């Protein structure tokens, strides 16, 4: 069911971790698309599998225990799941780039910024060393670091968190990727720096013309940046639609709960903690039924017996909840 216009198409992705000999799925049946030049936000509380999902796309799961069990990840129609490291290395950093949550640890402490910047270009282009260095410096300028000539000789510990994240972004866009995956790029930063970094990502997205898969648990960020939104809960997509309908016509009780938990005005940013209870850990995931049932205000007896399916309630708006017939495995109705 290849979708022609999608840049990235994830179909029924299952990613598991082996813990004490058993496989537990941190991502279970996730499907969504990213179209060219689109900003898709993935939201959900801590521990619902956002990072695991994005690492799966890049094939960067921890080798010793993480594994994609099922599903496909199509990049321009090509399935990335079965590619080996060598084939994947041609794509990573060139077609798809990624920036991470922790700028403090994401750069190698004993290599210069210049070395780490140059590396991407060495991996993917045949430019000469001097040209590469020039390009690195101009990339640093592009992300708002004016002292590029000096910074390339410095080490990560000499830079602030915001600067490091800028360096990460500069590396990520060096080869003009089609898709940038940003896994909570601002969570570890000061509030003022957060805004700057998001602004930078928007600006760069415009300049490079890339699509962005932005992972966040901050709905304020979503409102500002997203074209479309994927809401994840406990390893599953529970709702997906364009950004307006998420904010004005949320359907899944979890999405509604997330929305009511946005802090008003300039309150301290204690995001998403007003939903009582926590995301079940991998080992305590309910075997059947809706994974949100314990915390759901609208739970029905049926919810813990039947697995809800992700179904379209209207064009471009899917939800995984038995309150909607489209989600009910027994009473499927066609909307299209």
């Amino acid at each position, binding site marked *: 069911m290849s979708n022609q216009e999608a840049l990235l198409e994830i179909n029924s992705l299952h990613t598991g971790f082996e813990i004490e000999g058993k496989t537990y799925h941190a991502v279970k049946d996730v499907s969504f698309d990213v179209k060219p030049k689109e900003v898709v936000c993935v939201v959900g509380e801590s521990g619902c599998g956002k990072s695991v999902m994005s690492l799966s796309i*890049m094939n*960067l799961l*921890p080798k010793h225990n993480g594994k994609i069990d099922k599903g496909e990840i199509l990049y321009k129609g090509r399935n990335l799941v079965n590619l080996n*490291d*060598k084939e*994947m*290395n*041609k*794509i*990573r*950093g*060139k077609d798809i*780039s*990624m920036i*991470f949550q*922790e700028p403090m*640890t*994401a*750069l*190698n*402490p*004993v*290599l210069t910024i210049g070395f*780490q910047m140059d*590396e*991407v270009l060495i*991996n*993917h282009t045949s430019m000469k060393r001097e040209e590469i260095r020039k390009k690195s410096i101009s990339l640093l300028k592009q992300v708002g670091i004016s002292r590029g000539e000096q910074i390339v000789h410095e*080490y990560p*510990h*000499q830079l602030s968190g915001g600067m490091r994240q800028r360096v*990460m972004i500069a*590396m990520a866009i060096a080869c003009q990727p089609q898709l940038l995956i940003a896994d909570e790029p601002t969570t570890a930063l000061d509030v003022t720096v957060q805004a700057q970094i998001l602004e930078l990502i928007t600006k760069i997205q415009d300049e490079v013309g890339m699509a962005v898969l932005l992972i966040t648990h901050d709905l304020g960020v979503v409102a500002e940046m997203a074209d479309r939104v994927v809401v994840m809960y406990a390893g599953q997509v529970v709702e997906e639609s364009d950004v307006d309908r998420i904010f004005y016509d949320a359907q899944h009780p979890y999405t509604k709960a997330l929305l009511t938990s946005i802090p008003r005005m300039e309150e301290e940013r204690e995001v998403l903690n007003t939903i009582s209870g926590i995301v079940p850990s991998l080992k305590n995931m309910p075997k059947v039924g809706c994974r949100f049932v314990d915390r759901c205000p609208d739970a029905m007896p049926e919810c813990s017996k039947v697995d809800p399916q992700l179904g379209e309630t209207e064009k471009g708006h899917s939800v995984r909840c038995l309150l909607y017939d489209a989600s009910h495995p027994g009473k499927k109705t066609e909307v299209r």
Partner: protein
Amino acid sequence: MLLYSLRRILIMFPILIMISVVVFALALAMPGDALSGQIDPQNANPEYIEEMREQLGLNDPVHVQYGRWMAGVVQWDFGRSTVHKMGVTDLIGERLPNTILLSVMSLIITYVLAFIMGRYAGRHPYTIGDYSIQGINYLMLAIPSFVAALFAIFIFSFQFGLFPSSGSVGSGVTPGTLDFWISKLHHTFLPALVLGALTTASYTQFLRNDIIESSQKDYVRTARAKGTPENEIYNKHILRNSIIPIVTLFGFDIASIIGGAVIVETVFSYRGIGELLISSIERRDSAVVIAITLMLSIATLVGNLLADLLYGVIDPRIRVE
């Protein structure tokens, strides 16, 4: 950095003085003294012994003996060896180059072996290769050095005749010639191999564990996300980090290297400091024993200092501060 180094060096002086007191006290506490090692007590005239003791200053109060000794030390005079009938300073000066050669060679062997094995084991952990390397290492660690030395002599000298079994240089060669140096290296290689192999285990294990730990780090994931090939990730990103603790390890290890050298030199009759120390203890040549012990303590201190400073040189995070 400069200030830090200076402070570190200044701090060493009071420590050195304390060490000298302890060493001197220990030497006095040894049964017998310089005289009893030389003279057959059954045979000698007690009056003569008493006279000699008086002459050598052995009857003076402890603090006077210490003061006299210390006064010499600051003038680079460590007294006279009663056995060798020469100044301790000269005696040690004669032996020290051999021990330094042995230690350096053994360190080179340690680093080469540990680098090859640790790098492999760290990159392929929990494989047969890794387990074999660890097995070999534990074996080398478990075998006492004199047993290892005897084994090495048996196999390499007696069975294959590859290396001489004793001495530190061939008999007929003139010092300073090329032959002399070749002969020296030839004599040093086998004891250096034994000594090096003994310390290899901990270095290998250190490097292996650090590589495994580093390979889980976020920056490795970043490098992967850039499309950096696995080989480069290990050779540049991981090894650069893991090598830092290894490079400085020898500084903290100098004491145990010298400790090993004492035994290995004795088994190989290698004319170094270690062999001198053992034979001097046997013959109660206390001036030599004290001087060598003091020297080893200083070597340990300097080694630690060197390790710290080296760390600052190779780790950019410390370099600037």
